[in-house]
């Protein structure tokens, strides 16, 4: 099992969530986050913004579904054809165990 944390633009969340649902990955958690990236934030005129609002999508999937999910997020969270700075990042980390509380059973 792998946890996929993707930090994306807030305006792209709806598209990504719909596409994930259509592709058969309904289970997602969303949280509001603020941060900056490699570009050190955004400079507008003389003002520097380094706490840019983003949304973090968190999902846990089976190993074999990882590539599909990443492809879907990548395709739908991009701005324009080639993408722009600030489109976000995707991190993948291992998950050792998963439990469903309602049944108490192990596994996704």
């Amino acid at each position, binding site marked *: *099992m792998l*946890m996929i944390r993707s930090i994306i633009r807030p305006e792209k*969340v*709806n598209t990504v*969530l*719909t596409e994930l*649902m259509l592709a058969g990955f*309904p*289970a*997602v*958690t*969303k*949280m509001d986050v603020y941060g900056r990236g490699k570009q050190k934030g955004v400079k507008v005129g003389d003002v520097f913004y380094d706490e840019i609002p983003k949304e973090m999508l*968190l999902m*846990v999937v089976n190993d074999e579904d990882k590539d599909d999910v990443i492809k879907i997020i990548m395709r739908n969270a991009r701005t324009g054809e080639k993408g722009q700075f600030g489109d976000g990042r995707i991190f993948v*980390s*291992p*998950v*050792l*165990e*998963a*439990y*469903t*509380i*309602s*049944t*108490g059973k192990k596994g996704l």
Partner: protein
Amino acid sequence: MKEVMAFIRLNKVNQTKSALAENGFPAFTCRKVLGRGKKSVDFSLVENILQEGELPLSPLGEHLTESTRLIPKRVITLIVEDDQVEKAVETIIRANQTGNKGDGKIFVLPVQENYQIRTGEVAVDAY
């Protein structure tokens, strides 16, 4: 060291808090999240209801028909020693189980190092 992440119902936070404290896990982080689970909502049903006029066409009704409808949840994160994982998971399950869908999920993730900011040391019991 392991990170235990539990996605639970809003109204179970207090019970979980006291259950964890009683079982020796006083330290944890809680935050508000929105999410959806495996159980997919059939939105055509909602649309039918809306068309028949049973549900008022309010902003709430519109919100219900959105395909990306998310349910508010709380996520509790705690860092525990390897041999304590089982106990922590059991405690959370016991405090949150109602037997219905939507009770939540628990994930266990590995943690490599932890530092205590106050002392700047790699602390064994920093959590």
